[in-house]
């Protein structure tokens, strides 16, 4: 389906024939994809298609059962998320990876705390951490009253914003985002898209998982579509139209039927008309 | 709840209860045995009866486990209360010497009971009441050996507790001396089912005599013997008395019970300290042995009533 894309330099991150099963479920089967510097690669697919599993494999959370991984052309094997982070991969997980009882600032820097002082007195620079968190969240349009509030008391969208701000702040070479805008308001979602564009402009490779075709079309350069753990091919933006993309994401004809049916229901239900008197 | 008859048959004879206390006497007792332990429960009854008889105010304390560190701190606390007399047991002279010496240095007369007969003098303790657990155990071992026991079992319900270990050690030493063999069986004091099962398991290995270190073990051991049809075939002896144990001895199910008359270990020092405080009189010093006494089929019936009152 998709034509090979010619390349002059090796992609930033590449996986070939990745496979992963959970018990009897094969969440990924022979999936190959790559992301180059300065582009946004959208990973699209139905619920349960294996998108989060792919992302977690790329972040060192899951070990792949088969398949290779390359960073800038060199084969690597990620042993842990820490490993991935050190190799320049920053990730926003769909389940957000937050410690609910801990403060916003402590969560923001978890695993990458800024320190000051010399060794025996080296300490977590809470002042600096606080300032950074405030500034970063302010940029996203989230006003935190108190960055020592536990994360568990925040609204869903506030929590997502923190996760994104954190990944962007630490993002080095590759930024991976798993449904970053799902719980965000229109404004915050817009801001996140701008962030992604900025990261791309800086030369980052961005991998974005989203269910929102509008967002995907607005920001994506290439699209990889997964279906029940198998890749349905990769398309660059000039190989596919927006309508085609939406159709593919929604499983083709079914969507049309649905939209039609929905329209019918909305317009023609007699009871509803009655209750509106 | 104690009838007048509960007064001990005056082995000592000196301890006359004064008609009216002239001073407010405060005496502190700190031992290593909890009042929930059958043996120490009787000691405490002695303490309480003596308090009643002398009119003294007596407090009884013990650590929650066999813990010498906690015990030394209890002594420290009692010394801080500045009592007129202190009664202690000394199962570990190393651990307790500092606290006892501090009490002596503070001018408090101290009497040791039960354990510590070997060290009491060096610590400045006035008097020791009771005998060592080792001797009691050794006496029991001699009696067992005399009954023809060759392969003995000592049922210990708290391995590592120094006084219980000494009982077993004395017992096994006596057996070995008489040419027999023996070993220790660890059981759980708090679970008679566990104890009974373990004794049953050990019986399979040719044991012909069992020594238990208290009623916790003896009841379970007797149940094991009964269940296996071994009553009488395997000799059973125990430390410390309860009405059940005494009934067993009377009916010939148990061979004997070793009795330290620990009631006196509680009663006598209080009386002595009260007299000392009031009149400045004191026995010339030394060791007042309270046992070991043996209760056998011959004298069991006489003791049952006293045991029901918690005096033997």
């Amino acid at each position, binding site marked *: 389906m998709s034509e090979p894309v010619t390349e002059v330099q090796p992609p930033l991150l590449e996986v070939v024939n990745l496979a992963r099963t959970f018990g*009897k479920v094969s969440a990924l089967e022979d999936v190959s994809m790559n992301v180059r510097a300065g582009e946004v690669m959208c990973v699209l697919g139905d619920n349960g298609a294996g998108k989060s599993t792919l992302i977690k494999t790329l972040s060192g959370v899951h070990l792949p059962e088969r398949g290779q991984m390359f960073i800038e052309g060199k084969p690597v094997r990620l042993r842990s998320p820490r490993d991935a982070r050190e190799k320049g991969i920053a990730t926003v997980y769909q389940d957000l990876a937050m410690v609910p009882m801990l403060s916003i600032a402590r969560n923001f820097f978890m695993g990458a705390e800024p320190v000051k002082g010399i060794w025996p007195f080296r300490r977590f620079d809470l002042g600096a951490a606080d300032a950074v968190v405030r500034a970063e969240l302010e940029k996203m349009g989230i006003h935190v009253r108190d960055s020592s509030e536990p994360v568990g008391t925040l609204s869903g969208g506030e929590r997502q914003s923190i996760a994104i701000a954190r990944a962007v702040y630490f993002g080095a070479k590759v930024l991976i985002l798993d449904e970053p805008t799902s719980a965000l308001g229109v404004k915050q979602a817009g801001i996140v898209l701008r962030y992604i564009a900025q990261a791309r402009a800086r030369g980052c490779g961005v991998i974005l998982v989203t269910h929102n075709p509008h967002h995907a079309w607005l920001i994506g350069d290439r699209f990889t579509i997964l279906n029940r753990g198998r890749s349905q091919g990769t398309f660059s933006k000039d190989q596919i139209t927006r309508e085609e993309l939406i159709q593919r994401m929604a499983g083709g004809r079914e969507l049309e039927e649905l939209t039609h049916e929905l329209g019918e229901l909305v317009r023609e239900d007699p009871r509803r008309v009655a209750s509106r008197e | 709840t104690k009838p007048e008859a509960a007064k001990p048959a005056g082995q000592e004879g000196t301890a006359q209860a004064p008609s009216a206390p002239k001073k407010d006497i405060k005496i502190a007792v700190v031992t290593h045995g909890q009042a*929930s332990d059958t043996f120490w429960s009787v000691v405490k009854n002695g303490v309480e009866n003596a308090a009643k008889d002398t009119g003294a105010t007596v407090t009884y304390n013990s650590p929650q486990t066999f813990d010498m560190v906690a015990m030394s701190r209890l002594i420290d606390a009692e010394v801080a209360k500045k009592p007129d007399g202190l009664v202690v047991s000394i199962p570990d002279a190393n651990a307790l010497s500092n606290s006892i010496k501090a009490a002596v240095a503070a001018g408090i007369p101290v009497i040791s009971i039960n354990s510590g007969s070997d060290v009491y003098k060096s610590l400045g303790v006035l008097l020791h009441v009771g005998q060592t657990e080792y001797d009691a155990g050794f006496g029991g071992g001699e009696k067992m050996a005399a009954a023809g026991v060759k392969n003995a079992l000592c049922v210990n319900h708290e391995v590592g507790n120094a006084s219980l270990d000494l009982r077993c050690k004395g017992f096994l030493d006596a057996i070995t001396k008489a040419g027999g063999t023996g070993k220790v069986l660890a059981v*759980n004091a708090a679970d008679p089912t*566990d104890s009974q099962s*373990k004794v049953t*398991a050990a019986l399979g*290995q040719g044991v012909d005599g069992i020594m238990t270190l208290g009623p916790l073990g003896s009841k379970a051991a007797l*149940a094991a013997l009964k269940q296996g049809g071994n009553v009488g075939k395997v000799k059973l002896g125990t430390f410390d008395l309860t009405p*059940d144990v005494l009934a067993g001895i009377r009916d010939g199910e148990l061979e004997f019970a070793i009795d330290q008359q620990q009631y006196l270990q509680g009663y006598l020092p209080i009386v002595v300290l009260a007299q000392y405080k009031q009149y400045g009189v004191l026995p010339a010093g030394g060791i007042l042995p309270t046992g070991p006494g043996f209760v056998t089929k011959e004298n069991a019936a006489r003791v049952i009533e006293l045991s029901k009152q918690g005096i033997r």
Partner: protein
Amino acid sequence: MRRILNRPELGAACGVVAVWAFFALYAGGSGFLSQAGSATYLEIASELGILAAAVSLLMIAGEFDLSVGSMIAASGMTISLLCERLGWSIWAAIAVALVLSLGVGFANGLVVVRTKLPSFIVTLGSLFILSGSTIGMTRLVTGRTQVGGLHEALHYGSAQTLFASRIGGFSVSILWWVAITVLASWVLLRTRSGNWIFGAGGAPDAARNLGVPVPKVKIALFMTTSFCACLIATFQAVKFTGSDVLRGTGKELEAILAAVLGGTLLTGGHGSVVGAAFGALLFGMVQQGIVFAGVDSDWYKVFLGAMLITAVLVNTYVRGRMVEARR
């Protein structure tokens, strides 16, 4: 088939088999395999198992009860005192003890649910209070710490048949154990209350939001646990014709241990009653096996610890293999 492989109790069952095989090999000659030998560890396991069944339910619901040990002492003493001092019928005494134990369980549960304090603390408090008042009351009334002579109580014979008789050399408590395990397992896996127990422990807020009466579930389980402790106290009081104020000390930890061995999570939300039964069996077998193997009592605990860890490792290994096999 996959269902069986997936059950949490499988690992404990394999641990039981491994431990049994080990002792059959090393202590088979000294009576471990004999009928009488098997009867001893089954008896220990049965009493622990009854407790562990209730404790595992409570733990699945996310709570602990540290007061069960002292509940055993308190109930046993209640029965003995009522019979010995007041000459009551043993049945009346048992009934009073059961009612008292249910009351204590209710109080535990109510305090935990109302104050939202950790049950570890609350029941540690009731451990102290129960144990202390048992000692204090008994000494106040009798001047001693043991009360015997229960075999002279009214109707002792019928109570003995029910609680302390032996059937073909095996203690009747084994039947009780099986019956209670089956009942508790049925409640957990096949009834609506069972679903609530899982919910109350696995995600209390979510369960509450879905309409599960979490406080009621927890209080009921505290009462069940106390009830089972009282039952064991009855067994022991009847069998050993009396009670002791120290009886049951430490049983709370053994019961938690059996539950955890059987695959119940300490953090709640997951576990199995059948697993707890296997855990109790494992514990009883190790305890008795060591004696049959003739291990010196000084080193007894070393073996107990080593066997315990080995059994758990077998348990975990088996569970791991099973997950592999399901692939």
